[in-house]
């Protein structure tokens, strides 16, 4: 974990060079099977680690990420490093500048060891990349890691890195976090710069951290967040102190438990594990308040339509070489090209309506708690899942409880809250009002501190 490693660094029990060499060693040993990296930047990482050690020795301490090995999803630019977006169409793309988040992480002293594999062009939730290999779930190689930030989540779960950066357009941080048993945080829209990140859907894309613990995710977000004048959607709101205190409490916190939508058609183990976590929150003094939420099925439809149209605008130029795009992604781009402009505008009008409806919830509760996904990680290459007695498209099922939150731009965290009977992680999603990252993180940290969580992933022992 980041905090322990940071402490060991300052006590002289380890060095950034040792941490980085160990991370690179694990990647070399395990990643042929896990497929979590597209590019590993071993020499630059080791050089940066040496610098980090020299700085610490000289009294220059950049903070808790100083000297810590991390990775970024391979659609986030690093100057001089190949950035493929998981597509052969970008196989030669070497950016001249780094993304805003990379600049911030480097300023904070983090050591970036490589670029994580992802669903092609971040447009899908399986991370079965036909060009760079299919990421596998470290808990069970036969199961999906989720996506599109599957490489980032699996790398953290397997202990290859201390934290990773992903993106989330319709659940792409929270789904793999839930499936791989790590913490994933989608911040408020505008909280983290999107500059230098390959776009999928301009008004739905979010950049955020994945980590082993809630406080590690908070440390990463704290370093990444803040205004970037070069990103038109970047917020000027001050970030403030978002890192949960050691003895944080949720006593009196009003946690909304949706009566509609979010607990419909769940795998029964997911339902049981999540409700157990909620009962635990109540035992810690939180007020569980049953609440009806706006029409999330409609919100999902609107989000899908906007994503189709915006992704087509962003990616259609790639169709000049359509045979080099995977069939699933190509079909989604083509679907988006056929969305009428008036429908896109109407979708954005409906978005404003739903945003207003949803904002009324925050008068009654401080946050919402829901499952992250209706089921644990399905088997790879499985197109449908059985939920509530009905067969459901696996991609739509995976995004069902998370996609709408992107439309609303709200902060949402997924933390592991237990294992299914098959030994696969289950995620608990906590959603808060815009720019309430501190509340969402506090609620998650208090639960984690009190024992809500899962054992270490078996891949750690390898």
């Amino acid at each position, binding site marked *: 974990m980041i905090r322990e490693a940071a402490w060991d660094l300052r006590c002289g029990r380890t060095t950034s060079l040792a941490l980085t060499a160990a991370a690179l060693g694990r990647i070399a040993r395990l990643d042929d099977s896990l497929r979590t990296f597209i590019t590993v930047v071993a020499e630059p990482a080791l050089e940066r680690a040496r610098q980090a050690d020299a700085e610490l020795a000289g009294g220059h301490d950049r903070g808790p990420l100083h000297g810590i090995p991390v990775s970024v999803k391979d659609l986030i630019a690093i100057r001089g490093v190949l950035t493929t977006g998981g597509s052969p169409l970008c196989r030669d793309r070497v950016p001249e500048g780094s993304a805003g988040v990379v600049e911030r992480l480097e300023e904070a002293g983090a050591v970036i060891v490589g670029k994580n594999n992802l669903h092609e062009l971040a447009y899908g939730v399986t991370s079965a990349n036909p060009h760079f290999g299919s990421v596998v779930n470290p808990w069970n190689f036969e199961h999906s890691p989720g996506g599109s930030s599957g490489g980032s989540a699996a790398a953290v779960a397997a202990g290859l890195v201390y934290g990773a950066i992903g993106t989330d357009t319709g659940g792409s941080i929270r789904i793999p976090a839930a499936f791989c048993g790590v913490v994933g945080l989608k911040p408020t829209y505008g909280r983290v710069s999107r500059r230098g990140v390959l776009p999928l859907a301009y*008004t739905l894309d979010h950049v955020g951290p994945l980590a082993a613990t809630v406080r590690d995710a908070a440390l990463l977000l704290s370093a990444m967040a803040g205004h970037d*004048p070069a990103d*038109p*959607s970047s917020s000027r709101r001050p970030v403030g102190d978002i890192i949960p205190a050691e003895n944080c409490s949720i006593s009196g916190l009003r946690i909304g438990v949706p009566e509609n939508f979010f607990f419909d058609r769940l795998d029964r183990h997911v339902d049981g594990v999540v409700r157990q976590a909620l009962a635990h929150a109540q035992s810690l003094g939180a007020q569980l308040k049953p609440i009806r939420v706006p029409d999330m*099925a*409609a919100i999902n*439809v*609107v989000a*899908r*339509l906007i994503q*189709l149209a915006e992704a087509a605008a962003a990616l259609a130029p790639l169709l000049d070489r359509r045979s080099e795009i995977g*069939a*699933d992604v*190509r*079909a989604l781009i*083509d*679907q988006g*090209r*056929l969305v009428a402009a008036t*429908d896109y*505008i*109407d*979708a*954005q*009008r*409906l*978005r*404003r*309506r739903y*945003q207003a409806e949803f904002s009324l919830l925050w008068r009654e509760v401080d946050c919402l708690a829901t499952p992250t996904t209706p089921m644990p990680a399905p088997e790879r290459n499985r197109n449908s899942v059985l939920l509530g007695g009905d067969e459901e498209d696996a991609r739509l099922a995976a995004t069902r409880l998370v996609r709408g939150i992107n439309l609303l731009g709200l902060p949402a965290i997924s933390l592991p809250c237990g294992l299914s009977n098959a030994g696969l992680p289950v995620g608990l999603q906590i959603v808060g009002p815009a720019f309430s990252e501190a509340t969402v993180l506090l609620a998650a940290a208090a639960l984690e501190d009190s024992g809500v969580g899962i054992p270490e992933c078996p891949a750690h022992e390898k």
Partner: protein
Amino acid sequence: MTKHWQAIAQAQGIEIPAAEWDRIAPPLDAVERAFRQLTAGLPSGLEPALGFSAEEGSE
């Protein structure tokens, strides 16, 4: 009412190989059906949630 997606594509000069329509039309039909119900009766005064500021870049 479903849309004739292939005709729309043709009218817009969008070329999609015939074999690929099975992956395109059914999902679009589903989105279209669900979305059309939501747009009925939208008041014209409801503005889209899109950001544009004339002041942008003037700082």
